Structure formats: structure tokens, C-alpha cells
């Protein structure tokens, strides 16, 4: 037990150390008036929530100019901002002074903001990863997931470098998966609703959750069981949502205004150079001129739903936890590739489910995580975080190379396909290295100033499509034991027996 605790502590401390190292670097929009960046957005939300009544948070008023980083995340984010704002006010009232604090920047403030992320990490994300590990430990897994969740560089580059609180929503999401894994479906539903109410981006994961729970409902045996479970789950969801939205319920216009803020269709199809299908296509076909925004949104919606359906329906038929984890990854990848208004950071929503699959698919997931880290490069260049990205990318690859990839070697030696897979992996990493170096050091031709970032985006997009197909294939070919609700458990039992026989 000691060793387990001490290993866990080691990983946690290492994670905190790396996170803090990143936090010494600049944040998005540092010293770039008038709009600054996400850092200023978060600070501005603290300012707004602390100084204004709840009803005005999402409404355009004289004190709340929605054009300047108006609040566009669900209420939990707002509450979190409120708490941080209260703390900020205690530390230094000028951090959050209404109007006057716009574009406030100082070393102390940066320190304060970084600490808020660290606190959120320690309170939500770390416990969530720990819960997942301890839940998976039953199945002789979970340790790699824990290490991966904590040390995957993309997440803390965005949170501690670029500056956001993805760790809260993703932590709640991981905790929800852990709850489902341990059989506590209602708690899982509540936690997922909380995640969804922290960041609407969690919708990426909503469909697999829904279909998984639906599938388990069907497996209750009898109509009564089905109805009882559905009622329970429904109550959980409804109660959570109403509890979160209660402060806004006083006025219908406030509610509708808030909802409109959450789903902004006036924004573009994608931002900058994202490795999504639409961005890659638009290099060859000028989508923006061909189709107007509204239609494009429809096309996105349709294509996303169509691509989502196979894995989701499969999940209804086979609602096991392994299927769920694959489906989560598949759904978020499909969303990332096809949905409307995708941002580079969105890949984190696919990376976290991938982290949770790492002991099932050590080779492919680490490959995917590596590529996903590299796909953040354009964003990081903008924020002046190139160096940490490179350092952490190499660190992560070294870690996976030594701890995770060796476990695939046995498989690799056995089948010819895996030999080729590994070669492809090295080729792909070499390609990434080449494109990264080109982006950083090669002067692009004048006519194509964004040549290399776009090439990188297309390259990553190709990878993501491949991964998407591969993980779909995995999900559909997973062994399913009809007698046992949870195939993984039975697999685990087999594994245990096998070990004992040895």
C-alpha cells in the first residue's frame, strides 16, 4: 500500500511541478490591448460577477458590455468566477474594480490567477483522476490512466499557459465516468450535468453518456425496472439543471438571453488553423464563400449527427463501460472533426477520453495524444508558449516511450500489422517534427504566409480521421459478453485467474 500511495504522490507532485513551470510563461493576450485574450476574459468575468447582480450577468447593460468578453459559459463558470472574484477582492480590490480594472495586468495578478487554476486542479481534477484510478484498480488498470490524465501536456498548457479552467469541467467529466464505472449511475449523471453546466463544450460527451444510460435502462429487466431507472435518472438531471439555473429563473428574458449567449452562431465556422475537416477542406474549397453561415451550421450539425450515430447506437445495444469509453472518444473526435466553430483547444475534449483508454489501447492512444499536443502549436506560438510546448511534448513522448509503449511490444512482435503500425508511428512523429520545425524556423513564401501552420493542421486532421476510424473499428469489434453486464469485469476475472495460474 505504501508503494501505491508513494507512487501516486510522486505523480501528483510531478504534475504540480510541471504545471507550475508552465505557469511562469506568458498567458494569452499578455500585453496586447485592447482585447487581450482568454486571461482577460476570465478576469473580466470575475469583475462582472462580483460587482453585478446575478440577473445582469448575461445581459447587455451599461455596466456589462457583452461585446467586451461577455460571459458566454454556463452558470457554473459564472459561480466559479464569482468565488475567484471574491478572493481577488480580498487580495487586492483593484483586480476586479468595475470598469477600471479592464486590461489589468501585473505580476501579482498573474500569480493570483495561476493560483486559482492550481486550486481548481487540486480540488477537482486531481481527485477526479484519483477516483478513476481507484475505480479502475479493480480491473487491474487505472494507473496508466492516472499518469496520463495528470501528465498529458495539452491540458495544462492550455490551462496554465493560455489560461482557462478546462480542468474543472473535464475533472467533473472524469469523475462522472468514474462514478458510472463504479456503478453509481445517478451520481454519474449529476456530475456530468455539472460538467455540462460548467462548459457547454461538454455536449461533445453528452450523447455517449445519454445512450449508455439509456442502454443500461433497457437492461434493467422488465418495464418497471426500465421506468424506475429512467425516472431516477431523469429526476437527477432535472434537479441538477434546475438547481444550477435557479438564480436565473426569476425572469424568462434573462434565461433566454443567457441561453443565447451560450450558443453563438454568429461566430465563424472555425478559428484560425484548426485540424478539423472543414478547415482542411477550406484549403481546397472556399467553403466560406460557397455556403452562408446558417446553412453551414446546418451542414455541420447534420454531418456530426450522422457520424455520431453508429457509435452511439452501438452503445445502446452494448452498454458496457469499455464501450462507453470508446464511444466517448469517438463522439468527441467526430465533434471535433465535423462540428461548427471548433477551436484548437477543443481537442482536449477528445484527449481526456483518450487518456482514459490508455491501458486498453496504449499504443494508439499515446500516438493520438502526441499528435493532439502537436496540433496545439499554432495556438501556443500565438501565446508565446512554444518552448514549453516543445519541451513538454518531448517529455511526454519520452515518458510514453519508456512506460507505455513497451507494453505493446509483445503484440507488436506477434503480428505483422503491428510492426507496420510502429513504423508508421515513427514516420508520423518525424513528420510532426518536420512540420513543427518548418513552422518555427522556415520563412514561408510571401503569397502563403500561413503555409506551414495550415500544412500542420491538415496533417493532424488526417491523423484524427484515421484515429476516428480506428477507434470506431475498435468499438465495434470489442468482445461483448451477453451474460455479464460488464465484459470488462469478466475479462478482468480471466486475467486474474491467468495470473494465479502462473
Amino acid at each position: 500500500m505504501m508503494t501505491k500511495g508513494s507512487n501516486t504522490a510522486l505523480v501528483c507532485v510531478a504534475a504540480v511541478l510541471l504545471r507550475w513551470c508552465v505557469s511562469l510563461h506568458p498567458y494569452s493576450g499578455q500585453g496586447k490591448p485592447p482585447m487581450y485574450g482568454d486571461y482577460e476574459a476570465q478576469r473580466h468575468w470575475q469583475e462582472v460577477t462580483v460587482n453585478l447582480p446575478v440577473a445582469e450577468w448575461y445581459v447587455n447593460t451599461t455596466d456589462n458590455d457583452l461585446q467586451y468578453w461577455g460571459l458566454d459559459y454556463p452558470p457554473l463558470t459564472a459561480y466559479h468566477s464569482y468565488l475567484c472574484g471574491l478572493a481577488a477582492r480580498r487580495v487586492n480590490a483593484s483586480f476586479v474594480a468595475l470598469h477600471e480594472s479592464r486590461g489589468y495586468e501585473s505580476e501579482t495578478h498573474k500569480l493570483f490567477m495561476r493560483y486559482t487554476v492550481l486550486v481548481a486542479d487540486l480540488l477537482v481534477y486531481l481527485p477526479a483522476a484519483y477516483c478513476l484510478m481507484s475505480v479502475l484498480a479493480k480491473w487491474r488498470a487505472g494507473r496508466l490512466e492516472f499518469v496520463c490524465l495528470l501528465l498529458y501536456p495539452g491540458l495544462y498548457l492550455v490551462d496554465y499557459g493560455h489560461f482557462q479552467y478546462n480542468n474543472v469541467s473535464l475533472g467533473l467529466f472524469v469523475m462522472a465516468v468514474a462514478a458510472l464505472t463504479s456503478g453509481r449511475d445517478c451520481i454519474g449523471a449529476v456530475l456530468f450535468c455539472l460538467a455540462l453546466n460548467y462548459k457547454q463544450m461538454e455536449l461533445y460527451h453528452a450523447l455517449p453518456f445519454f445512450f449508455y444510460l439509456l442502454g443500461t435502462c433497457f437492461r434493467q429487466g422488465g418495464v418497471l425496472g426500465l421506468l424506475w431507472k429512467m425516472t431516477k435518472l431523469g429526476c437527477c438531471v432535472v434537479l441538477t439543471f434546475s438547481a444550477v439555473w435557479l438564480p436565473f429563473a426569476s425572469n424568462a428574458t434573462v434565461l433566454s438571453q443567457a441561453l443565447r449567449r451560450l450558443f453563438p452562431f454568429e461566430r465563424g465556422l472555425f478559428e484560425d488553423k484548426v485540424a478539423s475537416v472543414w478547415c482542411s477542406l477550406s484549403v481546397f474549397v472556399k467553403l466560406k464563400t460557397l455556403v452562408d453561415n446558417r446553412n453551414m451550421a446546418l451542414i455541420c450539425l447534420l454531418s456530426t449527427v450522422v457520424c455520431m450515430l453508429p457509435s452511439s447506437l452501438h452503445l445502446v445495444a452494448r452498454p458496457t463501460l469499455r464501450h462507453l469509453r470508446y464511444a466517448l472518444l469517438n463522439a468527441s473526435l467526430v465533434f471535433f472533426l465535423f462540428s461548427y466553430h471548433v477551436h484548437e483547444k477543443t481537442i482536449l475534449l477528445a484527449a481526456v477520453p483518450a487518456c482514459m483508454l490508455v491501458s486498453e489501447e496504449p499504443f494508439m492512444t499515446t500516438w493520438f495524444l502526441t499528435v493532439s499536443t502537436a496540433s496545439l502549436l499554432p495556438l501556443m506560438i500565438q501565446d508565446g508558449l512554444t518552448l514549453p510546448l516543445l519541451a513538454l511534448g518531448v517529455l511526454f513522448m519520452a515518458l510514453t516511450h519508456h512506460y507505455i509503449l513497451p507494453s505493446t511490444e509483445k503484440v507488436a512482435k506477434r503480428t505483422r500489422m503491428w510492426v507496420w503500425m510502429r513504423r508508421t508511428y515513427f514516420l508520423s512523429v518525424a513528420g510532426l517534427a518536420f512540420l513543427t520545425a518548418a513552422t518555427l524556423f522556415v520563412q514561408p513564401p510571401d503569397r502563403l504566409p500561413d503555409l506551414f501552420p495550415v500544412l500542420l493542421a491538415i496533417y493532424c486532421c488526417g491523423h484524427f480521421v484515421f484515429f476516428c476510424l480506428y477507434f470506431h473499428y475498435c468499438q465495434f469489434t470489442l468482445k461483448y459478453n451477453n451474460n455479464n453486464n460488464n465484459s470488462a469485469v469478466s475479462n478482468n476475472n480471466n486475467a486474474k485467474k491467468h495470473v494465479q495460474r502462473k
Partner: protein
Amino acid sequence: MCVSRRTQVRILLTVRNLFLEARGRGALEPLTNTFTGGPSRRAHYKHRDPALLIPGRVSQDRKGKNCQVFNCKLGLRFNMKLIREGERRKFVPRSRYGGQLCVSQWSPSELSLGSVGTSGGNSLSSTHDMCVPRRRPRHNVWPGCDRNVLPQAAPHARLPVIYPSFLFTLHRSTDFEVHRNWLAVASSLPVDRWYVDQTSPWTLDYPPLFACFELLLAQVARFFDAAMLDVKNLNYASPMTILFQRLSVIVTDLVYAYGCRLCGEEVVKAGGMGGGGKKGVASVGAAVAVVLFTNAGLLLVDHIHFQYNGFLFGVLFLSIAKMLQRKEIQSAIYFSVLLNLKHIYLYLAPAYFIYLLRSYVLLGPVPARPDKTQNSLASRVFRLIKLGAVVVLIFGLSFGPFIAKGQLQQVLTRLFPFKRGLCHAYWAPNFWALYNIADKLLVLAGGRLGWAVGEGGVASMTGGLVQEYSHAVLPSVSPGATLVVTALSILPSLIVLWRSPNNPWQFVRAVVMCGFGSFMFGWHVHEKAVLMVVLPLGLLCLLRKAEAQVFVFLSAVGHFSLFPLFFTPQETPIKVTALLLHALFTLQVLRAHWGQTLLNTLETLYLLGLVPLSLLLEVGAGRLGLGEGLPFLPLMAVSVYCALGVTYSWVKLSYLGLVGAPKLKRKTN
């Protein structure tokens, strides 16, 4: 785990028979009181087939006495500890799969048994150092996983660990400017101006080879930003300059990595642990290399505060590793280079001097055959000349140009500035910190009791930044006095070293004690110097449990005492987590080897006391309402508290060095 009494008796009988057999061969004097010791002196080992102890060759030890080697082949699964009894000693190098039993007739007064060659006389493992862990190293397997996280994979961990240091890039401290200035001085001024130039207050005060090293760096620095090489460009810090300097530290750290690796290999060999296979102690040995390489203090001092200590310690470790490999000349070369890179390592020179004189010059290399000893006067003189020539050559290369220009005096005054005070502004946690605080307490007590106390002492007490001050009650300390005390403090370990020839591990011990003595009693010691104790001590932590205990304790305390160097609030989480990470990792690796009990209750309590102390330091006395009167109270508290721990470690280590081999303890189960 416990071996039944019957088995024990059988084993003892077997070994006894062996001795009788040996007597029959006439190789040894009869052993009279074999195995008469109490139960606590009994060997614990499991065995399957004791008959496989095969008498090996008879050879002579260093003193020309007879010595019999027994090889034990596979089948005997030794988990055996040192057997010591009566007048004679028999040592069993442990190995899980085999090993040697060596029986000789050395008098007990000698602390070292020396060694009996395995092959070629090169990789001699000194049996004296072989305190065998009471159980087989336990592998750290996280439940539910097939591979361990760190210790087992530790050999590979070497490389990744270096990368995080990239992350500190954007931070800079005053030492940046020091080294930037040296870069500029070395690259843009002629050699005879190096030690004369006074453009910057940070004049060159390292020996000439270090300036040459900076000159080499400057050749690369040109491609980053040539402006940093201008002497007049004071406080120049473009992003490229910082990047270059960070990178230079990271790249030169590879020397340190190499040194750690070589030393780690030697540690594994010395433990007789080479045969353990991939999953055996070899991985723990490699993990020790990682423990050394990832040293938190070094990471903080080099990569945040900015210095090239990693590189320098790399050279030191190379030198030690060569010594352990019995390549004394190479070791001497590395050490002379090191002395010419940074002269603070002069403190370690006594250990080198004694060991080389005794074991290399006087006794000579280990003979391949007993009749071929090389102890003739001619061969001794030849070895002395060889050694002397090497050392003189390197010093000549380094200082020659300055001697030729008649600047030696100037260089030496730069290298040894005696104008500084007894202690640094922040007291290094050594004996003098305790001395100072005792003085201050006496002043306070004197004030209460109405003694007449000099006013100067009272004033300097609250000053903190005063460089030189006189003690009010206790006698003031002069540089000469510290020198004498330092010499006295390292004398015992040197005597022990003299009396245990050809035992390179004893030499490492002496190096540690030299570093420790100078840290404890030296003049104007900087707190960074604690690394000079902690790092070589790390080499010993697989050999004796007691030393492992001191290492764990001292590394925590010593690294904590570096905290005041990093005072900006941004650095707080880094230093705390780096220290924690390293301490946890060290504990884990060593616990895997030695079992749970590495820290006793008192030590644990003491280390827990560091937590409120760090709070006091970070939050500051000001917030606690103590600020106005005593602004330096937190620093002083840290210094004194750490000084207590360091002094405790010093006493313990000195005691261990004098007592010698560890005692046998009956295994309690």
C-alpha cells in the same frame, strides 16, 4: 522469511566443514572459535544446496597475508549478512545467485578487509562495504499494473528528467549577469586582462580553466546574440541571451548525467549486485543514478538560480568513478581539471591526496598475481612522478599564462577574497550559525541579567546584512581559526582512510567527510555548498543502511536550507514541489532497497517541523505580526533550524565513519 533453526545449524556446520577443509589444505591458520557468537551474529540465509561452496584460489591480500576465496555457485541463495566473530572475520559478499566467501586473517583493528580479486583485480568489490539488506529488494508494483512507475524503469528516466528544466527559461536571477559578464570577459578581452578587468562588479573569481570554459561557450553564444559578449553591455538580458544561458546549463548537465551513470554502475558492482538481472538490484542502482541526477537542490541552483554546478559535479563524479574503477591517474586528471574549474573543491583535496598517496603511490595497483607486488621503491617513485607530472601539467596549462605574465598574485587575490565575513548574509546552516545564535541568545540573556555587553554585538544582531561583525559574548572567530577547526574535523576520516588502503569506497567516505567538515566549519560558507556533501553521500546510500538514513535526512534538510535563495513568490511552488518530488523519489528507491525504517521518529518529527518553518518563511513574519522588530527572523529561524539538522547529520556520519562496519542485527519478524 525467517530461516528455521535447523537450517541455520546445517548451514553453520557446512561452512565450518569448509573451514576445516581449508585448514587441511594448509592455506589458512586453524580457526578456533568458529561461530560461537550469539544468535544475533548468525547468518540468515536460505539455502538449497550448501555443498556448492567451492574453495577457490589462495591469494595474498595487500599486506601479504594469506587469504582464501570460496566461490559459491548458483543454488545457494544467499541472503547473508556479514559474519563477524572473535578475532577473525569472514565476509560474505552477497549475491542472489552466487558470490564469494573470503576468509582472511586480518586483525580486527583494521576497519577494512580490503578485497579479494575476482578477475583481473580491477573490479574489486570491497567486502567491507557490503552490508547486505535484510531482505531482497522489493519491487514497487502498483497494484493492478504490470510495470512499475519509477524504480524499475529508472534507467530510462535519466533522459526525460532533463527536459523540464527548459521550462524555467524565462526566469532570471543575478547570477545570470555574473555569468554573462564572464562570457564577455573571456571572449572579448585578452588573457592578461581576464583577472584585471573591473568593468562589472561581478569580476571573474573562478580559476582560469573556467574562464576557458566560458570562452568555449562564447563561441556558440555568438550565434544566439553577439551583443551579450560585450563587456560594457552591463545587465544585458535579451530573450536569446537567457535562452542561450539556460541551454548551456542543460547541455553541460549531460556531463553530470554521464558522471552519475558511471558512478551508478560502480555502486551496482560494489554491492555485488550485478548478477541480479534486469529486475534486480541493478535497477535500484540505476535508480540511485537517477536520484543523484534529479537532485532537487542542483536543479534549483542550476536551472533557476543559474550556475554550472551540474557540470562541475559531473567532473567530480567522473573523477570518483575513475577512482572506483581503479584508474587513479584518470581520476587525478579529472580532479585537477575540476580544481582549475572551481577552486572550492580544494576542500575535497585532502581525501584525494591521502588516498592517492597511500593506495596508489605507496601500495601500487592491485597485483594480478600475489607474487607480483609492485612495492619496490623504484616503482613507487615512478608512480609518484607519473601522478605529479599529470597534476603539474594541468595546473601549468591553467595558470601558466598568468605566471608568465607575472599576474599570479592578482589571480590569487581574486580567487581567495578573505575580506568577507565568517558567515554569508543568510547564514549557511552550519556550526557557525549555531555559534552566532548562541552568541545572540547570550546577549539577550545578558541584557536580562544585567551583564555588560558590547553594543556592537547588539547592533549587528538585527542588521542581518552586515558582512563582518564581532561576536558580543563568545570570542570572535578568525579565518585561521576556522581553518584549524576544519582541519581537525576532517582529520579522523583521513586517518581512517589512511588505515584502510585500496578501499575506494572508504575514499568516497573521506570525500564526503571533507566536504562536510568544510561546510560545517569553513569560512564564509555559502548554503549552496551543502550540495558538496549531499551529492557524494548519495553514492554511498546503497552500501550501508545508516548512510542511506543520513542521506535521506540530510538531503531533505540541506535542500530546504536553499529555499531562501529563491525568494520570489512565483518560485515558491517550484521549490516546494521539486524538493518534495526528489525526497519522495529518494525515499521510495531507498525503501525498496532497505525497507521501511529509514527515518526514526525524531527525524520524522524534525522534518515535519520544516512545514511550519516554510510557512513562516513564505508567508513572512510580517503577516504574523512579527515583522517590524525582527525582519530577518524567518531567515534566521530557517538557518538555525537547518543547522541543527545538519549538525546532527554530521555527528552521526562522523560516528559512523569511526565505528566502521555496521553491526549485525537479528532480524525481527
